[in-house]
């Protein structure tokens, strides 16, 4: 116990130090690199909090995809780095005091949380059998609170529409301007040939195992997105035009199937998003499989950005 606690104190201190560095360091590039380290450390904290599903999500999205997006943006904004005036000292002091106050208030709340923590764990566990799943987190996401999950898919798609909406008029329906290297080196091409088969297998495994063990559609979808992006960076596959019909179908297939299953619940199980007794696990697996695909494509396209060319370059 004590050794573990010492380790955890070190972990927390490191996380905070890296976070401070992310905020205060002058160079944007350094800040982003620190942020990615921060994401990975946060994932370890999640493991220590016994939330492995979250740890996987945080590592894949917080450390990986967000970092990639930020690095791409920083590269484009390189010329004007450090422009803009820092607010004066009084302003910063005031902000610092306000933030300290908020942190302190939150600290007091953490300390004064009820000794016997209110929890839904027993209820979630008791109903687990009815969902046919073994992983309670998956049961929350796809049964108890499936409605949240469904709406969140819509949020993702709306964000994508929002990103696309920022394209200039003349290139609408065209190709996202996702370019990292002018000419990808042979070694990168090698990686992009070697890794995706394995990555796709891992992505599928993550979703498949998610029904019973940590993992799931989000995590699997993120890995798929990463593989797709890698292949596009290495130019083994062109970035697709956003008006491509098959691409659009992939984007919506997950939500469509999910809603269809939900509506089926009206007829077969007397509630929207309820699963007919005995069929809940197969239905959830079908929904998750298609959602993994849609999430992967959506995340990939979100990172790829708005169209910048009318046709393939």
């Amino acid at each position, binding site marked *: 116990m004590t050794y573990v*606690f010492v380790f*955890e104190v070190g972990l927390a201190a490191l*996380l*905070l130090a890296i*976070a401070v560095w992310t*905020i205060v360091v002058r160079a*944007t590039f350094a*800040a982003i690199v620190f*942020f990615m380290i*921060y*994401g990975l450390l*946060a994932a370890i*904290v*999640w493991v220590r*909090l*016994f*939330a492995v*599903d*979250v740890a996987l*999500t*945080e590592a894949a999205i917080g450390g990986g995809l*967000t970092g990639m*997006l930020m690095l791409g*943006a*920083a590269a484009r*904004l390189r010329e*004007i780095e*450090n*422009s*803009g005036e820092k607010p004066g000292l009084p*302003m910063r002091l005031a902000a610092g005091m*306000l*933030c*300290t106050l*908020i*942190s302190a208030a*939150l*600290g007091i*709340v*953490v300390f004064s*949380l009820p000794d016997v923590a209110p*929890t*839904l*764990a027993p209820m*979630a*566990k008791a109903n687990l059998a009815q969902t046919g799943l073994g992983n*309670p*987190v998956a049961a*929350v*996401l796809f049964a108890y*609170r499936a409605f949240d999950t469904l709406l*969140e898919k819509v*949020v*993702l798609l709306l*964000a994508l529409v*929002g*990103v696309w909406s920022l394209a200039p008029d003349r290139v609408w329906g065209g190709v996202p301007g996702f370019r990292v290297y002018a000419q990808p080196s042979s070694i990168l091409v090698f990686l992009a040939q070697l890794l995706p088969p394995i990555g796709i297998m891992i992505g599928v495994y993550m979703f498949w195992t998610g029904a019973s063990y940590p993992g*799931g559609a989000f995590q699997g979808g993120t890995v798929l997105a990463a593989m797709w992006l890698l292949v596009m960076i290495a130019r083994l596959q062109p970035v697709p035009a956003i008006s491509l019909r098959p691409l659009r179908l992939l984007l919506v297939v997950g939500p469509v199937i999910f809603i269809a299953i939900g509506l089926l619940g009206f007829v077969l199980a007397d509630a929207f998003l309820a699963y007919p007794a005995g069929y809940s696990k197969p239905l959830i697996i079908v929904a998750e499989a298609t959602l993994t695909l849609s999430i992967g494509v959506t995340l990939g396209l979100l990172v790829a*950005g*708005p169209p910048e060319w009318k046709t393939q370059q």
Partner: protein
Amino acid sequence: MNSATLFGFCGAILVGLGLFGLITNPQLLRKILAFNVLGTGVFLLFGVIARRGAAAGLEGDPVPQALVITGIVVAFSATTMAVVLLLRLYQETGEATISPDDTSAGTDGSRS
């Protein structure tokens, strides 16, 4: 102090830190980065609450854990949209900051 409380304080500090960066850093990309630090702090607090709710043989309350996963995905979508807006602003104006005092800029009447 147990590990849940430890990480709880950690989350509380991260919230303040992220908020500070969000307010004081003039560069929008850094503001977005600070927003993500702030978000992680909030999620961490939720994770601590989940951990404290360990019961019935589960090591944590699965409900907040699932909500955090949803939250992380939403935060990512928000980040992409903000970043793309920022890049577009840079393309159009060559700037990557917005000063607090030029809020009067509205539509150009001749183009509305």
